């Protein structure tokens, strides 16, 4: 397995590669995988395949005449050349720009992005000096994304980690299906914000639309302004000193700290009435079984 080169692996079919690498192809059942940490693991900060980039090596890329695919491929090629800071000129609202970057990088967009911008990120620090369309930062895993102006609906859909910030206002369904990470909105957010949220944190400095946190399973939403209405199973929680310290640190970090501090924020959590681990009551089970 270890003796196979990448060139040899590339010549194989996918099935042959899987077998040659010693991976199982049969259907697994139950908890088959047992892995233990090695306390003597080597200290590394990036994935083994990540390109070696230098933040001080900077370049500009004008994507005006490029398609989104061409622009994304060019960004990857520049990273392979070691560029750690890339400034994108003339994005002109193109969709799906800057997606799938899985390592550290400083990426700066001089303009606005269209739909599904900077999704599936795992590590880079992105600044967008403009607006973004629907689903910015969708499925983000790690890193930071700062949008200087407004964002569209489903901002941070299914985000799993990292910080996603809009300094303006955002549309509806912000952080739908959020599974981790932090979403910060400097202005207002629309209806159904935090819909089906599972964990992570969301900070809304302005007002929140109706049905905030509807069907949220876990996680925390902090709102600095008014809340039009709570969704199903969203309830007010107690704002602790640890919450206040965390809020202060994050809002100062992104230049969004309100003049009157954070004491007035409302904390919203799951009421846990939707936690159904057993669909059938014991008495019902007796009848069915």
């Amino acid at each position, binding site marked *: 397995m270890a003796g196979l080169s990448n060139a040899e692996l590339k010549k194989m079919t996918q099935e042959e590669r899987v077998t040659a690498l010693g991976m199982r192809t049969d259907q697994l059942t139950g908890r088959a995988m047992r892995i233990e940490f090695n306390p003597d693991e080597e200290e590394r*900060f990036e*994935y*083994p395949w990540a390109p070696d980039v230098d933040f001080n090596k900077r370049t500009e890329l004008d994507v005006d005449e490029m398609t989104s695919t061409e622009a994304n491929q060019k960004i990857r090629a520049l990273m392979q050349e070691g560029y750690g800071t890339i400034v994108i000129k003339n994005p002109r609202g193109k969709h799906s720009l800057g997606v799938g970057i899985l390592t550290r990088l*400083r990426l700066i967009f001089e303009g606005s992005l269209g739909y599904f911008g900077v999704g599936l990120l795992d590590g880079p620090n992105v600044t967008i000096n403009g607006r973004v369309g629907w689903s910015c930062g969708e499925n983000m895993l790690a890193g930071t994304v700062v949008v200087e102006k407004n964002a569209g609906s489903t901002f941070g859909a299914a985000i799993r*980690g990292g910080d996603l910030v809009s300094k303006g206002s955002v549309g509806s369904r912000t952080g739908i299906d959020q599974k981790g*990470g932090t979403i910060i909105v400097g202005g207002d957010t629309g209806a159904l914000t935090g819909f089906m949220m599972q964990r992570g944190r969301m900070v809304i400095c302005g007002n929140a639309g109706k049905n905030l946190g509807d069907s949220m399973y876990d*996680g925390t939403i902090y709102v600095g302004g008014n809340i039009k209405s709570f969704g199903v199973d969203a309830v007010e929680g107690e704002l602790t000193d640890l919450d206040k310290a965390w809020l202060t640190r994050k809002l100062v970090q992104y230049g969004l700290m309100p003049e009157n501090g954070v004491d007035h924020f409302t904390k919203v959590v799951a009421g846990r009435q939707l936690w159904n681990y057993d669909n059938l009551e014991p008495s019902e089970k007796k009848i069915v079984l």
Partner: protein
Amino acid sequence: MAGTQYRGSEITDVDQFVNDAAGLASEREKEIGQHIGYRYDVNLVPDYGRITQFLTKYMEVMGWDDLNWLEDIHMGYEDGAPAVFDRNNNGWVSIPDTIELPDNQQDRDMIARELLLKFQMSDRHPLVLLRKAYMKF
């Protein structure tokens, strides 16, 4: 808990799920024979006074002012043993017996973050094999 009809049990002790793997404390949990909810507080935010040197260096390398995605990583408990959930491999990774557990969750979480990060970046992570086998471009 804030809700009025939550029928699970609360986490009262850092060693609760090491000493009691089943975690059947509330009447409802005993009734259905299953623990309700996580075995750790997923909403616990990190105490940066307890950060390790390795994690501080990681923040510097990545250009972050805080732990970023690692803020969501906690030490959990699987089958009565300490473990960390690894999203890249969609499974629990166990803490070796040789590592002595601190007496508070914040320090345990820092250990969990450090071990998970080193594992994810190592050549023996399942993602490395998966990438070799399935990567198309």
